């Protein structure tokens, strides 16, 4: 069944979009990532104009994250206090990111920069996580209940300490805010929620327990992507409501299944799977940059090069 999208101005198979939404929704619920880093390239591939894909994807992430976070709230695995602190940074970062994005657009080559950003961040985050979770998996087999190394250093010497009960942390609010800003900037430039950077940052930089990380990440992603959606809708008119609805019907249902699957898996297994997925996308994008494309010419809307 084909549906014509009013903003994207193309007609697409509704079931294809429902399926894509569902698939990405499952991943979103499992790993606490919005899934934008997977969905946005997929939408490009099926012929949605990039600007519409990026903006609409933000709207869809709001839905799947909200659906996912409700399940986490019920399991009490959301650190609202930490989420709030990250969010403050995230909103500042998203606003900054939009400014940076528009600046780069005027310079040209913004597509390339976004792609390089993807390859770099997905590559680094993916391999770090993969290596770490392999180590953790091996350790857990030796039945050592080794506590995560508490890094005594700069992070703990910082002022403005705050107690985050749900995460079991007593740390300065400066690192979470910095993480929030950095992820917000990236999210706006790359057109994603930023969960795939946020989740590892929470685990490895802030030392939060994996089970809490997913819910908390989803919680703050809702607000950052809602903000991004509004920015896109009011400045570029590129949010396609029909596309968003089709994607999010699949997405919210998928997210529920994802959360169920996630609850059954061990934290290390969850991390290793996420790492593998991130690396897979990274390799695919890098491959596209290196291999000679079959068509060297591409068309774009005039003015924006």
């Amino acid at each position, binding site marked *: 069944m*084909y549906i014509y999208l009013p903003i994207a101005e193309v007609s697409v198979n509704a079931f294809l979009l429902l399926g894509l939404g569902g698939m990405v929704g499952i991943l979103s619920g499992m790993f606490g990532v919005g899934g934008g880093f997977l969905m946005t390239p997929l939408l490009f591939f099926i012929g949605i104009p990039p600007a519409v894909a990026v903006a609409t994807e933000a709207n869809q992430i709001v*839905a799947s994250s909200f659906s996912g976070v*409700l399940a986490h709230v019920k399991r009490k695995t959301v650190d609202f206090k930490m989420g709030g602190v990250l969010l403050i940074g995230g909103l500042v970062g998203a606003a900054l990111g939009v400014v940076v994005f528009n600046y780069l657009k005027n310079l040209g080559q913004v597509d390339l920069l976004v792609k390089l950003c993807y390859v770099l961040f997905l590559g680094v985050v993916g391999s770090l996580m993969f290596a770490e979770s392999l180590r953790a998996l091996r350790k857990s087999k030796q039945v050592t209940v080794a506590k995560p190394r508490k890094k005594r250093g700069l992070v703990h010497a910082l002022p403005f300490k705050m107690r985050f009960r749900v995460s079991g942390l007593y740390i300065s609010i400066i690192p979470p805010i910095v993480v929030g800003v950095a992820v917000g900037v990236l999210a706006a430039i790359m057109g994603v929620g930023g969960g795939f950077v946020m989740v590892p940052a929470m685990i490895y930089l802030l030392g939060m327990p994996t089970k809490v990380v997913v819910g908390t990440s989803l919680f703050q992603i809702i607000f950052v992507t809602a903000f991004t959606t509004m920015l896109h809708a009011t400045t570029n*008119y590129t*949010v396609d409501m029909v596309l968003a609805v089709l994607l*999010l019907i699949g997405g919210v249902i998928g*997210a529920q299944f994802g959360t169920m699957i996630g609850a059954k898996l061990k934290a290390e297994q969850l991390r290793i799977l996420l790492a593998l997925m991130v690396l897979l996308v990274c390799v695919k994008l890098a491959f596209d940059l290196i291999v000679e494309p079959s068509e060297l010419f591409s068309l774009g809307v005039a003015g924006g090069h």
Partner: protein
Amino acid sequence: MQGFFARVLLLLLALAGPVSAQDIVLGMSKNEIGITAFFNGSEILIFGALKHETEASSAGDLDVVVTIASPRDPVTVRRKDKRLGIWVNVEAFDVDLAPSFYAVATTGPFDQVVSEASDLWHQISVRQLIRAVTVPPSTNNKDQFTEALVRVREEQGLYQMLPGSVQLQEQTLFSTSVSLPSNLVEGAYLARIFLMRDGEVVSQYQTSIDVQKVGIERWLYNLAHERPFVYGLLSLAIAIFSGWAAAAAFRLLRG
């Protein structure tokens, strides 16, 4: 059925005798296209009759060319090249105005029906149409970019060459059908009909086809552009509601 209907109409048109002073009498299956939610392309049937002068049949065979063009927009064509091991856009060229859709239907092979001179003069092929409005080249390889534009859009089915798809009966009645793709832009589409003899244009006629979004498509599009803030909030409300509904439904399912 449609074909039969068209033939009857053609017959009526032909029997109607000298309808007008023009040489071409034209009919179309539709002169406006509404883009609805379930729009998936559209087929237009174009038919008509040629009014003959006295010397008609002796002076050589007639040919008919039908073109349909969407409104024209500027397009940037970029070329990739390998730099530091990766493929990046290195060169860009702005084509001032190019249609996003263009179809040329002819009675025979294009080169035989349309002479180069008439193509140049009347801009019948899409290449001439694009070249005519493009400013003189600043780079020598401008052609490479317009060629690429045509090639990419031909692959996407947006530029169609349809040689032999116009049926001409008894040098009088012609008919053809052009299928428009689903990713149409809105606006007034221009349909041109050229009557050719020995590659030269004997007569021409043009009319427009209106392509508009209708119903919910129209409403959403207007809302997005006229009240973007409300539109954005509505999008978010739908997102939050569906997120909640899915979570609630699953809670019920699991008891």
